[in-house]
């Protein structure tokens, strides 16, 4: 089922939480709303759910105008960051809550609950109480509870936010597989770019109540619309025209900034033409990835990431002199740096 958000704005007092949001979610897709806290991503989700009313604009679910529809009649499934399970009810009764309300027959309820317990791989946990489950299990029960009433769309508000790193990763992979099976139109909110990239078909990058860019994970990473998106979806070195890395391009002007991702800095032991000299200042081992801090001639510091093979081939040591060559950079003009740039004026230049 499709979700259409058109020209939606919302204010809390003087705070513009949503500023003229337009968004089209195609049937069967899994969309991530990605942004820092206060960017409006949760407000947008809650507005679609009917937990907030927009000041302006319209929301349609499957072509039906739901802007002023009671939350009970929207037919949405909602999953909360802190699970919001009913503490006084067993797992089974939690899952059947929506079905009990709809007065389904006991037999139909039992069958549906069994199906869902199997889906969330918690057969045998039906008679436990939420307090007897781990965080990951609780969130799966919350998901089953939302799915029980066969909603038209599934909305998840930071669903993995309260879980520790390992469970988080397992659960997000599981959610992706689940989505591939049931193809329910879903929107989930996250501030974690890796999570958004790993799970979503499309990412909606939000900032200060606006949508900065909509695209596939690859699109927003490789073709960020503006400096905000570029820095939010991945690590980046931002350099001004005085940096040696910028000067070598002959494009240097005081109004531009050069953006280069740490893994796009290639490192050489011997200098070639145009290479920029740097000194290894710090080495951080992260298992499969090695992060370097490199001091340039003007004492500014850039970060470079290499894999283990590259690192051991180069035999780098602290204090060593190396030479840099960016594989790919992006330029953004100064006037875009207020993070509200239009998406048309960026340029991509292979160096």
């Amino acid at each position, binding site marked *: 089922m499709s979700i259409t958000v058109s020209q939606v704005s919302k204010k809390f007092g003087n705070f513009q939480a949503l500023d003229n949001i337009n968004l089209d979610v195609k049937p069967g897709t899994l969309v991530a709303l990605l942004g820092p806290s206060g960017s409006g991503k949760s407000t947008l989700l809650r507005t679609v*759910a009917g*937990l907030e009313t927009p000041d302006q604009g319209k929301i349609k679910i499957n072509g039906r105008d739901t802007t002023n529809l009671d*939350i*009970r009649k929207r037919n*949405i*499934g*909602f999953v*909360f960051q*802190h699970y*919001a*399970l*009913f*503490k*006084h*009810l067993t797992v089974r009764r939690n899952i059947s*809550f*929506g079905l009990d*309300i*709809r007065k389904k027959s006991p037999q139909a309820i039992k069958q549906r609950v069994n199906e869902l317990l199997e889906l969330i791989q918690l057969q045998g946990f039906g008679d436990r*109480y939420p307090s007897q489950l781990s965080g990951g299990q609780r969130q799966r029960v*919350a998901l089953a*509870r*939302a799915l029980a*009433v066969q909603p038209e769309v599934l909305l998840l508000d930071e669903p993995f936010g309260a879980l520790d790193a390992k469970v988080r990763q397992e659960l997000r992979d599981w959610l992706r597989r689940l989505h591939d099976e049931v193809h329910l139109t879903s929107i989930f909110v996250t501030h974690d770019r890796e999570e958004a990239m790993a799970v979503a078909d499309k990412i909606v990058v939000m900032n200060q109540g606006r949508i900065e860019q909509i695209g596939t994970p690859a699109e927003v990473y490789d073709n960020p619309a503006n400096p905000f998106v570029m820095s939010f979806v991945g690590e980046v070195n931002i350099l001004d025209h005085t940096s040696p890395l910028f000067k070598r391009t002959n494009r240097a002007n005081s109004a531009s900034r050069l953006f280069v991702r740490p893994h796009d800095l290639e490192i050489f032991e011997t200098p070639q033409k145009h290479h920029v000299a740097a000194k290894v200042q710090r080495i951080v081992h992260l298992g499969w990835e090695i992060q370097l801090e490199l001091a340039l001639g003007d004492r500014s510091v850039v970060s470079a990431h290499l894999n283990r093979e590259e690192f051991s081939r180069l035999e780098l040591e602290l204090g060593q002199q190396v030479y840099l060559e960016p594989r790919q950079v992006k330029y953004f003009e100064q006037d875009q740096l207020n993070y509200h740039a239009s998406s048309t004026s960026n340029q991509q230049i292979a160096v």
Partner: protein
Amino acid sequence: MLTKPKASVILLSIALIYVSVLIFLPSIFIFYEAFHKGIDVFWNSINQRNFWQATKLTLIVTAITVPINTIFGLCAAWVIGRNQFRGRTLLLSIIDLPFSVSPVVAGLAIVLLYGRNGWLGGLLAGLNIKILFAIPAIVLATAFVTMPFVAREVIPVLEEIGEEQETAARTLGANDWQVFYRVTLPNIRWGLLYGVILTNARALGEFGAVAVVSGSILGKTATLPIFVEQAYKNYQAEAAFGSAAILALIGALTLIFKEILETRTHH
């Protein structure tokens, strides 16, 4: 850190002596005085018209006051615990007012308001409705002094559980009543029960405000606590201690009832 045995023994003794002087000794003394001459003497001393009337009146007043203040307390708790608005703390203080105002003052206010020359007294007298020195005034006085208990017990529980479960219930299709009955009520049940028990205990035992508004007419408008006081004043020590023992027993039974309920339904 290890606790020093000596210090803990001293502290424990002080606490024990304090509790004994305040609670254990008086309770034992009441039951001793009521029963030490035998069960027949106890029974004969309380088996009188005035005692039964006082018991009946106390039960009637309690049966009216407790449900009213339970419903009021739930509403007040919901307004205060689920909404943010200007004057929220002021409202909370107003609900606490019966804790801080002497019951005698409250009784006096009722007398002045509903008396023959009071703002409402004249009007109601014209309609031939009797408030003072009758059940309505006793209910009013009792309701006033027991008003805060339910709200006070439920508000912190409501705040602690938060709104998320209720919101979740609504996304699953529950209407307001279903949200309250299926989600809110089970979550607040212990706080609510405790509030009701406190309300009940206070309603049974209220003396000051009721003494002022009821006229304390034995056999007519005297409640159990007033009967105890009157009997004692009239040198009927056996009747006084006998009925006091009954009051204490009802209080103890309420607490036992609460314990049973808690152990039965707790998981």
